[in-house]
């Protein structure tokens, strides 16, 4: 009991000493990075669309109007209509909800499982390390889309299953990143100190190792959201992800490709939405990486 109190005191002291903390200086660096800001704006735009979809979408994304099918962009339909006469703009806006959810859920799966595996491997080492790392090697040996398709074959074609599949596929990346940063962090004196003070493995991992390994995890998570959006679109394109009439961007792309020549807008706009969303996430990810890199400190 007493030892634990001392430990928290030690932590409190280190915190006070920080002054301009590394997080704040990272934030400053991030905001000064123009491309990262651009990414942030793009993503803010999509998040806004997702959150306020019912208020800003001009039409119901699911109700067809066959008389008006394949209408080119006009004042009534800013981005035109698809093969069912549905408003493409409204579908893209609602699609943002799906893509956002896809990004969050898949990355949560990969993040939680991957981080736990990486911690285990990095902190306990030995047999844990061997088992977990060989396992991730095996997973990394497969092309990610192929692995996702294989998982989908077992789970069946559904959007939620696509999210699980892609989440699982991304686990190894998190596991490796966490493991390598844990390996370096656990050699620091404060970890020895904490152990000397009698802290158990659990608190050491979650109070010391995890917070200090957070930077690379955040970067990877941001980049993974982008990958997840693209991969889900890919699975939906193959007919394995979102099922009709769900306005998922990849599915929209796949279902419209027959009309590429006579109604190019039905393909172009969902494609652009995927491009812009993933580009935005990647710009943020790159910006975060630069900002969180300790070597970039002023």
């Amino acid at each position, binding site marked *: 009991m007493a030892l634990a109190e001392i430990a928290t005191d030690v932590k409190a002291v280190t915190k006070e000493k920080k002054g301009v903390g590394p997080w704040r200086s990272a934030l400053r660096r991030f905001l000064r990075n123009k491309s990262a800001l651009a990414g942030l704006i793009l993503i803010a735009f999509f998040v806004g669309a997702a959150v306020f979809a019912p208020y800003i979408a001009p039409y119901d994304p699911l*109700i067809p109007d066959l008389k008006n099918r394949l209408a080119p962009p006009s004042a009534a339909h800013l981005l035109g209509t698809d*093969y*069912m006469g549905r408003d493409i703009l409204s579908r893209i806006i609602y699609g943002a909800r799906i893509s956002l959810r896809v990004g969050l859920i898949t990355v949560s799966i990969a993040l939680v499982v991957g981080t736990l595996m990486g911690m285990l491997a990095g902190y306990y080492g030995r047999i844990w390390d061997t088992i977990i790392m060989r396992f991730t090697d095996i997973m990394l040996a497969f092309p990610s889309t192929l692995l996702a398709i294989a998982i989908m074959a077992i789970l069946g074609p559904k959007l939620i299953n696509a999210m699980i599949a892609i989440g699982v596929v991304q686990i190894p990346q998190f596991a490796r990143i966490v493991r390598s940063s844990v390996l370096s962090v656990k050699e620091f004196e404060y970890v020895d100190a904490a152990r000397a003070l009698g802290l158990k493995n659990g608190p050491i991992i979650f109070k010391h190792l995890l917070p200090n390994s957070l930077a690379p995890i955040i970067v990877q998570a941001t980049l993974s959201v982008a990958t997840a959006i693209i991969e889900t679109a890919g699975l939906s394109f193959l007919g394995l992800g979102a099922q009709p009439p769900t306005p998922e961007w990849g599915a929209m792309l796949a*279902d419209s490709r027959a009309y590429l020549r*006579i109604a190019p807008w039905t393909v172009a706009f969902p494609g652009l939405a995927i491009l812009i969303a993933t580009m935005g996430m990647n710009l943020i990810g790159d910006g975060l990486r630069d900002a969180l890199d300790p070597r970039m400190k002023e």
Partner: protein
Amino acid sequence: MRRTSLVLTLVALLVISLAGTTMAAKKGGTLIFGRGGDSVGLDPANVTDGESFKVTRQIYDTLVQFKRENTEVIPGLAHSWDVSEDGKVWTFYLREGIKFHDGTPFNAEAVKFNFERWMYEDHPYHIGGDFAYWGYMFGGYPGIVDHVEAVDEYTFRVYLKEPLGPFLNNLAMPCFGIASPTAIKKYGEDFFKNPVGTSAFIFEEWVRDDKIVLRANHDYWGEGPYLDKLIFRSIPDNSARFIELQAGTIDIADGLNPDDVEFIKRDPNLKLYLRPSMNVGYLAMNQMKEPFDNVLVRRAINHAINKEAIVEAFYAGLAQPAKNPLPPSVWGYNDNIEPYEYNPAKAKELLKEAGYPNGFTADLWAMPVPRPYMPDGRKIAEAIQADLAVIGIKTNIVSFDWGTYLQKTEAGEHDMALLGWTGDNGDPDNFLYVLLDKDNAKVGSAGNIAFYKSDELHELLIKAQQSSDKEERTKLYMKAQEIIHQDAPWVPIAHSTPPIGAKAYIKDYIPHPTSAEKLNQVWLDK
């Protein structure tokens, strides 16, 4: 009116074909036929899909065959035939000197072997499939056929238990192609991928989901073949297939997006063919499952679907909305049937009356490949999904690869399934008995995938089968369509005129209403 326009088309086609033959046909060259799906198998007795018959038509001959442009029966492997007074004994006089591609002589014994393989379930070579078509056409195994006999080397006789109106037309169907007994015995279960027949093309190679390669049979007994090689390529994506046609990597493409037809008309290097309409695309509601066993629900669904809009949007107008299972081009069509009008309010009322005021959830199956009767099943399913959502029926669209899709629908695993039928022989029996009689609602090999079992209908259809008086048969089929309309096992969707695109140098190509034309007379003018 429709009948006369059909006759006119046929006459026009005939004139065109005659005009075509005045040009001397050139020999040589390879023709690549692009289509939407691979063949399921090349043993014609064991398949039911058009993509298989498209190929087996080139390899096998039938005892009698259809004219190039319609379903009139002309001599095939039999140069003539006669039938007994009571209509029960058919005698076929076979052509002499024909050999199968493997050198086996063609004779009455070979024909007898084929028939017995099809009709007896305990025949040692009744293997490799369920011989569904024999059952569809002859009502079981052996069904209406009592026995067959090889009278002498070139005379073959079929003894029927009852007279069968469409008997001769049935035998011209590609599924009754005569195969080499030697090859059947040699390959057993694997015969479906080692086909051997007597026709104009010899099987060479099959790369699954890619292509089937055939080469010319220079000893063919009929006209031609003019082509050296004939390749069937499977290109599932409609636009990709059309782009390949434009690029010249294939010579003929069927299953076009109706929206692409405009491009063909504008392109001087391409020629548009319209296959004469003899098909129906439909939505079958599986009566083995709730709530589709309730006729009110089935009628509600009939009222809920806007066929006109579907035809306009997904067939580019190259079809007419259906109200009967029988297409208007087949005799016996009942034009007096009043179709279920599109009326969601009425549909809702019927659902309420049936005890489903809030609707229900069901699976809606859609075929994964373009079919002549339905150019894009998944999109039509989407339109139906939206129509049904209006009356509270929530549907999940389900799809499998083509072979699995057929298997699973034949086994009745679906709630509602889109499917269709292209007539094989121009006889109403080939639609009504095959697709809606209780005899063909057998789980596992069903032609009647609505699993609709009506004794009243069955009686009519059997009576019509056993008559050879066309007037009487017409009356019976008219009545049958009324019963079907009342019971509403399907939502009949459309009768299409499937568009086919071909390079302008393709000569003497005549699309057959049955969807499986022989290509022995086709040649390349280049």
